[in-house]
């Protein structure tokens, strides 16, 4: 576990996704280092359509490895403004750079005050 990384510059959700403010009020969403490690090599990601809306805590994408298909639980309610097109040809970016190039979607959040957890709180959950 010590090798896994959880940057402090973003918000987390207990279902293993993070949300990072993009500067323009929108949030980039992705999965945590812990999640990518559990999934193993990602071979396909079924991303949502731009414009679709998701409530906090529901699945906005499906992430497939050879072993499992896992839902991506959105950490904040919002409308999809952009999806990471690079993942259609290189889904392994989710493994190699989960906090950077392996982002999933960018959303326009409904409510910035929605409850999320910090990196420290998230780490406590996964090590429990």
């Amino acid at each position, binding site marked *: 576990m010590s090798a896994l990384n959880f940057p402090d510059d973003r918000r987390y959700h207990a279902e293993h996704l993070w949300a990072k403010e993009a500067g323009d009020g929108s949030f980039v969403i992705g999965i945590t280092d812990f999640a990518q490690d559990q999934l193993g090599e990602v071979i396909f990601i079924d991303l949502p359509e731009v414009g679709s809306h998701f409530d906090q805590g529901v699945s906005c994408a499906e992430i497939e490895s050879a*072993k*499992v298909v896992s839902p991506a639980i959105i950490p904040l309610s919002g409308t999809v403004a952009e999806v990471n097109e690079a993942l259609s040809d290189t889904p*392994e970016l989710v493994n190699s750079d989960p906090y950077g190039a392996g982002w999933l979607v960018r959303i326009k959040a409904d409510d910035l005050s929605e409850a999320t957890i910090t990196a420290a709180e998230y780490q406590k959950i996964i090590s429990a």
Partner: protein
Amino acid sequence: MSITLYTAPDCLRCKIVKEFLAERGQEYTSFDFKEDKDIFNKYYRANRSSIYRNPEGVEFPIFDDGQVIKQGTGEILAYLLSGRVLEACVTRSELLHGWISGLNVSACPAGQEDNFVTLVRLLAQGGLTVELHSDGRRADLLKRVLDEGFVSRMVLDIVGPAALYPAIVGGELSAEDLKQSIALTRAHADGLIRVLASAYAGGDGMTRVSPAEAGEAAKMVLDACGDRMLPVFVEAQQAEGLEALENQALLPYRSKVRASLVKAEIRKPEAH
């Protein structure tokens, strides 16, 4: 036609297919999903909608000859033995961990008996533990397969009363076949007889064998074997578009079946 196999490391099911191809001198290309991950991942993304995943992930090996994509060792070998002719009697195995099912002796098309026997032999000799199914028809072929000694578990499914057999399985069940199939299943070390609350396509959509019809099926079994103490299990067959039958809903089935076969018990599908 060039054959490509996608395999997993230490995969017995993959090894059986490779050995069969090698024995027949058939050339093929093989990629391991881990070692050749770039090739596999690309293939997976392009063909994802045709690729089946079992509860533990992608089912390996994946066989692709440019015409069809097949998964499951039984289905791949059946295809290599006789094209698509065996598809009626060799379907997806619901069993994992060294077991293989999806083999229905009663649905074997006429003329394919040798291939069916060969298939069961190849699977067992390759190291898989074979579960064979019958619905009572083709007792002659059932005897042939069982005599080879490669079947570890034998399941005889009574899908309904004889009158419903054409609608449910597409063929007639003779009393003589049923009698012999029951005797063969009872003689097997791990033989099991089920009276199914079968789901099938009726006049207006999917329909299900009723408790009264299951009772008639049990009566037919009693007439064939003459033994009221014959142990049978009552089990529901799940199907899309039909409500699942829970244990409670199976009680009327058990009552009707017990009118002929007093030792009938309800069995959950997970109990396999």
